[in-house]
């Protein structure tokens, strides 16, 4: 088994997170099919066709800028061999500074910001580095348990070179006391792996007079270590 035995990966069944109760599979997962194509994927093709849109403080279409504490979120995407992953496609979405999403189903009684959609896209450069400018998202209440609040977070969806390295995750902020109360964060069994979900404040990324910097590196799991065996390499 590849994911199930690694404590970096949350179990599907985690009753403290109520929505898992009727959605987690009840039968054991089967070993995956082994195709030569598992080491390829749609990521590189998608990355080539998508226009980067990485400044969420000014991409809402109006003349104004988003309200909130401006931040820079940057990091390196690496594969399981520790090598940087160029041309990884990263899509993000997040709540605004008041803890409200631009979404019909978000009923939280907090203001929308006409200058913030909370949506961005970028592609890693030749060194595997990505960079977004946004605002720090607010915490928001949810119905999981009495007085439940999600810690501040940014959602990330990442396509690396291989289908098997597909990752959807959430980035959290350092020093947030809500993390230890959050069943989604706590679903990751290994405490060291949980810490990898928390960005680090990075003063070297902070731009004087403009925005605070945070570093969040992303480690992709999958089969990238055998990339030299890809048929497309002709080796």
């Amino acid at each position, binding site marked *: 088994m590849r994911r199930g035995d690694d404590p970096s990966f949350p179990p599907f069944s985690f009753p403290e*997170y109520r929505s898992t109760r009727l959605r987690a*599979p009840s039968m054991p997962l089967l070993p995956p099919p*082994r195709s030569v194509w598992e080491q390829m994927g*749609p990521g590189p093709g998608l990355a080539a066709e998508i226009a980067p849109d990485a400044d969420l403080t000014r991409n809402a279409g109006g003349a104004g800028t988003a309200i909130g504490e401006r931040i820079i979120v940057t990091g390196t995407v690496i594969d399981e061999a520790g090598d940087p992953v160029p041309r990884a496609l990263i899509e993000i979405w997040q709540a605004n500074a008041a803890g409200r999403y631009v979404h019909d189903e978000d009923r939280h009684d907090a203001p929308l910001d006409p200058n913030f959609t909370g*949506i961005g896209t970028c592609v890693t450069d030749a060194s595997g580095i990505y960079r977004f400018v946004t605002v720090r998202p607010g915490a928001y209440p949810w119905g999981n348990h009495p007085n439940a609040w999600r810690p501040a977070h940014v*959602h990330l*969806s990442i396509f690396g070179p291989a289908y098997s390295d597909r990752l959807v995750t959430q980035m959290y902020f350092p020093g947030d006391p809500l993390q230890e109360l959050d069943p989604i964060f706590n679903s990751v069994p290994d405490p060291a792996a949980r810490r990898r979900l928390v960005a680090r404040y990075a003063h070297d990324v902070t731009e004087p007079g403009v925005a605070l910097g945070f570093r969040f590196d992303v480690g992709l799991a999958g089969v990238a270590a055998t990339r030299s065996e890809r048929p497309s390499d002709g080796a």
Partner: protein
Amino acid sequence: MAREPTPPQTVGPFFHGSMLRQSRTRIAPDDAVGERIRIDGRVLDGEGRPVTDALVEVWQADVAAGDADRAGDDVGPDGSAGLGRSGTDREGRYRFETVRPGRVLASDGSLEAPHLEVFVFARGLLDRLATRIYFEDDDPAGIDPFLHAVPQERRATLIATRDEEGRYHHDLVLQGASETVFFDA
């Protein structure tokens, strides 16, 4: 595994604006080589209720997938990425239009039956759920090395049925007696 993989977290209920910014229910371009097909189905929870906030992501090969000298990154139909994405509607239904995929080489050198690779994402799913969709009229259980290894009584959960109008249907059941086969991938 990555020495230090970043753990996955649920996609949550608010992904639509970002992940479905562009419509990707039509996977193959209009001029792609191959038989045009349509497929739809519902995502259902452990009580048989529709999951109305799921994201179904599929990836497929083009018709020439099994060619031994195949090279390059553009593996989908006619130079496309081959990625499909569909949110689920109020009935829990996803839908795609594309061309029938070709047969991909398995790691043992044999040819797999045509299929879609599938990831299901949703609130309440802490990681992506991986499965495949085969097509009943290809007799996939008879020719596919992976499907052959799946216990016989569960194979049908991986195979789309075809109606009189030629459309495929395939429900994805997250939990319960008729649970879809999911992989640890």
